[in-house]
């Protein structure tokens, strides 16, 4: 079933924490854990996006990050990275596999 709800990343992280049985910790710890995991997942995905950008586009991409809107950055990534959805999904799957040791 395709996952395209607006909060996929938060749900992904929540599911990881639940799968490890960590959701019964103190509320503040769980909030921090979610924030940390979300940061880490985002870092992985960002690294994957950057790694799959054609080298000749990287310099322009950097300028875009300084000057452009969120939509322009997203649109640039979609236009210039072939199979972006699969790349992101693979990165999430790898992270999940490592975290859950599956």
């Amino acid at each position: 079933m395709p996952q395209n709800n607006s909060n996929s990343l938060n749900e992904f992280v929540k599911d990881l924490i639940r799968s490890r049985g960590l959701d019964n910790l103190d509320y503040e710890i769980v909030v921090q854990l979610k924030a940390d995991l979300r940061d880490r997942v985002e870092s992985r995905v960002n690294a994957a996006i950057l790694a799959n950008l054609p080298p000749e586009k990287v310099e322009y991409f950097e300028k875009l990050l300084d000057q452009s809107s969120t939509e322009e950055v997203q649109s640039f990534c979609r236009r210039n990275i072939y199979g972006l959805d699969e790349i992101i999904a693979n990165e999430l799957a790898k992270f999940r596999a490592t975290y859950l040791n599956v």
Partner: protein
Amino acid sequence: MENIFLKSLERKTGNAALDRVPASEEGDHRGADIFDGRFADHKAVLAKLDAELEARIGYSKRSALAESQRDVISRVAEKIISSEAGNFVDETVLASAVELSHFIKVSLSLNEEMEHRETADLAGELESVLGNFWDSKGEGEMSDMGKEKFIDAAALLAEIESRLERSYYQKNDPAFPVSEEYSHTDVLLAQGKVALRKIVKDNQDFVPKGKSFDEFFECLRGIADLGFDGGNGPARKNKLILKKMRHNPLAFRKLVNMTSVVV
């Protein structure tokens, strides 16, 4: 050796900032004679700041630092400069910069000391520190950790989190062989941040003036990451771009949320 604080201020504001005279109680004096006097004072304060940093970090050490390491210290200096009201460095800023340079020095020393220790060993030490904290926490009470122990714990936390990040790129890192270690360490890190944040709430002077715990921790993370360009990690140029991507989370979080592929 260049004065990194002066360079930071110039980078931030351009030389024009040094041409301005701050408003005094009598009004905004821009007379050339007063300007020259204040300008000389301003540079003198920056020179004093730089000397203080040198005294703590040491000229020989700074000259031996890699470019990436000097960059981190310059960025920390920029944060000091940009966090204070106005563009001029006065004794208040000097005091907080001295404090921060102390943190830098302690962190650098701790990092050197920690460099050759196993991550599991560091995690055990952090666990012990936090265990003492949680054990002694009564209802509404915080344990009296003390500023030095707080800095040690924060630097330890930063080092462990940095290694956790690095381990992704060094897949054969013996410190993180299985997922149990990952999630156990994650919980430890979360507990540590929650604990230290609470301590700062009751002890504002444990972090440099005007800084939150999270801003202070980000500085320590930068120091813990010093010189890491190893493994299959991103090259230094890419690290800068990744940092910009991180500061643009909406753009990339939406890409993840929009992905239509099953995970």
